[in-house]
């Protein structure tokens, strides 16, 4: 009793208000920044030739011929994986906090605001709670599959990080089949959903699992075809290659280069919403229908994994869309040559190179968070579609639309000269900006239209 009182976060916050702010700041900025910095430091080293050279230069050890070289390489890869896994967990947690705060505000509520400054530590508290809770397994469940299911989802979440470019050089490996690889491995998530739905031996979970399978498999098709549009425009499947084919300014992004790409972007985003089981496509867990759907029987740590996958998947979805359509990490005004020049001639890059890398990561992170906000915002605005509507939307609208975009892009690439692309880019950018301004004005007018409501940022 006494211990639980002492650990009561509210009373701690009361007693040491500064401590709370410091802890919050550390969790909010220190941890993610540390992970980014780790990525920035480790990723450039993570190549055999660099490691070999470094070992020779600093340690005088000829790694290239050493019998232990594979162990060292694997060790570095583990380091990278460690950073990625932690980043996923932290992002998943932080995004739950963001989601709850944004949802609260949109719903005229406040959201969590007690644990830590602005309630930021709520996700840490939740994670601790989840891990401490009993991990119950229903007696009639298929024990092995029930235990394994969350890890399938987890693997599906983590594998795309291998090719997701965070910055100019901060990518684990730039596969030449990157896009294809992402489309393939994200399907692992649905294996987890399907297995958990079946293994739970619960009717709700079964409904959820089957719905999830049907949904994700269907939406792979429009998603896959829509992803072919930037591939066509860049002429490569490599993620870095696609980003390099774009530029830092909006009219250099693929999304505005031709109208079909714009449509393909919306199709890709819609499909990824469906693949990530986000509202309006949250059918597999459909709270008001299936109670909790595929994870109805899960608790404790396994449930935490499912929830983490659900939220962290937003990063993959958004990051993919940013990479393929929105210019990725391209910093405005920085050409690819500048990275090369800044790198310097030495084995390790010059400081300016690191600054440029950090800038490119920042651009990527900001864009991705903006898309994540869009996902959150959509979730708290739209109702859920029905199963048959989800299917008809996929097959009647998205699939034909994606094919059309594909063909138009093909023709566009063949027929329109580069100048045409540039003009289209600028025109579409202007249009998009005009729509954005109109949208913001509409938003402002919504407040004025309701008697008694006004702009008021108090009550946090």
């Amino acid at each position: 009793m006494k211990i639980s009182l002492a650990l009561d976060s509210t009373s701690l916050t009361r007693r040491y208000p500064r401590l709370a702010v410091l802890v919050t700041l550390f969790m909010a900025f220190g941890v993610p920044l540390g992970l980014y910095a780790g990525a920035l430091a480790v990723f450039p080293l993570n190549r055999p030739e660099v490691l070999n050279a470094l070992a020779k230069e600093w340690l005088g050890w000829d790694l290239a011929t050493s019998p232990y070289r594979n162990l060292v390489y694997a060790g570095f890869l583990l380091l990278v994986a460690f950073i990625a896994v932690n980043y996923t967990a932290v992002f998943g947690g932080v995004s739950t906090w963001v989601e709850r705060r944004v949802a609260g505000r949109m719903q005229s509520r406040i959201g969590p605001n007690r644990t830590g400054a602005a309630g930021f530590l709520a996700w840490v508290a939740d994670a601790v709670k989840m891990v401490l809770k009993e991990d119950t397994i229903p007696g009639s469940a298929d024990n092995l599959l029930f235990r394994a299911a969350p890890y399938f989802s987890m693997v599906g979440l983590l594998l795309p990080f291998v090719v997701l470019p965070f910055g100019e050089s901060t990518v684990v490996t730039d596969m030449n089949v990157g896009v294809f690889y992402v489309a393939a491995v994200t399907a692992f998530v649905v294996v987890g959903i399907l297995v958990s739905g079946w293994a739970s031996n619960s009717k709700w979970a079964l409904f959820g699992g089957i719905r999830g399978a049907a949904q994700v498999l269907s939406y792979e098709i429009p998603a896959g075809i829509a992803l072919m549009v930037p591939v066509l425009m860049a002429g490569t499947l490599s993620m870095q290659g696609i980003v390099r084919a774009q530029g830092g300014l909006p009219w250099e992004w693929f999304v505005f280069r031709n109208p079909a790409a714009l449509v393909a972007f919306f199709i890709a985003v819609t499909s990824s919403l469906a693949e990530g089981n986000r509202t309006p496509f949250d059918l597999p867990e459909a709270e008001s229908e299936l109670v909790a759907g595929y994870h109805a029987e899960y608790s404790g740590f396994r449930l935490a994994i499912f929830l983490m996958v659900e939220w962290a998947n937003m990063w993959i979805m958004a990051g993919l869309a940013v990479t393929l359509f929105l210019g990725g990490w391209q910093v405005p005004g920085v050409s690819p040559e500048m990275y090369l020049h800044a790198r310097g001639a030495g084995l390790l890059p010059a400081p300016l190179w690191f600054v440029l890398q950090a800038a490119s990561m920042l651009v990527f992170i900001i864009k991705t968070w903006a898309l994540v906000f869009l996902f959150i915002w959509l979730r708290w605005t739209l109702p859920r579609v029905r199963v048959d509507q989800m299917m008809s939307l996929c097959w009647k609208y998205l699939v034909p639309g994606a094919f059309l975009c594909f063909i138009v892009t093909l023709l566009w690439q063949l027929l329109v000269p580069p100048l045409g692309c540039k003009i289209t880019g600028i025109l579409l950018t202007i249009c998009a900006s005009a729509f954005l301004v109109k949208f913001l004005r509409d938003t402002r007018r919504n407040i004025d239209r309701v008697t008694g409501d006004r702009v008021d940022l108090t009550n946090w």
Partner: protein
Amino acid sequence: MPIDMELDRHILRRTTTTEEEIVVNFGPQHPSTHGVINFVTQTNGEIIRRSVPEIGYLHRGLEKIGEMVPYPGYMPFTDRIDYLAAMFANEGYAVAIERLLGVEPPPRAKYIRAIAGELCRISNHFISVGTMAQDIGAATPLTHALRERESINDLLEELCGARLTFNFHRIGGVAFDLPEGWGTKVLRFLDHLDSYIQEWDRLITFNKIFVKRLANVGIINRALAIDYGLAGPNLRGSGVRWDIRRDMPYGAYPDFDFNVPVGTGRVGTVGDCWDRFFVRVQEIVESSKIVRQALAKLPEGDIQAKVARKLKPEVGEAVGRVESARGEMLYYVVSDGSEKAYRLRVRTGSFMAMGIIEELSHGIMVADLIAIIASLDVVAPEVDR
């Protein structure tokens, strides 16, 4: 007996079964059953073969209690019949006993009843349309609706001291007169409400997914609605222009000018879920009109008719009907000349609405069942009483 067999044989009245079908219990605890109700549902994948509601989990014997307590003492119990629209449960009981006694409440009391009742109707309809949006998967409209409802609850709390269990009506009048300055507050709120309703429509009513989910779903045509004795917005959603306030006027309602919105099949077929939803949204606007008129025309005078302290109505029986937020609420009171009712019967809109769900459930999808339950606006305590 294994529970599955019992469900099969007893509730679903099923003698044969195919391998593909499963029986699912939607409830008694389920996010969308609006209380404690169990829908025993026989499904083939996402398609429902039949869904049979099992009720009674909230049965508190309120009709029996009516035979045990004296007439005035039953008023607080009526609050518990329908906790979302207790004003009408109060009013219906008061009207029934007044008819039994031959007492007429003074005009001011009638107006105050109308004001309180219509505010309560707005509050109830906000819950109804909000939870409906929630059941369709949109969480935000519900909290926006609750925001408006909070304002009404504050007003009603100031009027009668409670937010849900009002116990505001008395036999032959009302408990309190309007507080000082209350009318102005109500008018200020109504100004807000009238402008807010348009925002509500922009947010959810015409949302494409929402319309798609509700239009042409759970169609109850005119004949079916009447046959099943549906009441209130559910009946009007099927295009039947029937409103006790207008057609069997009681209280101050003959003095007011208001429309009775009915379902028109604007986005689908007459009598679909969306029509029932939209009827409620329109009724919010109509109720706002009534409150404005009542406040403008509010007569001076007493708020309580002369009624003996010990009520002993003559032998006889009377029916009190009011248009509750969930349709016609009918109190049937039989008096044997003592100070307690000999028999007190409450017939509620939710009970009638529950009866039709089995009929509608053939061949719909799981998600549609949720939409239908939500659109019928059943409140479990009102079903079970």
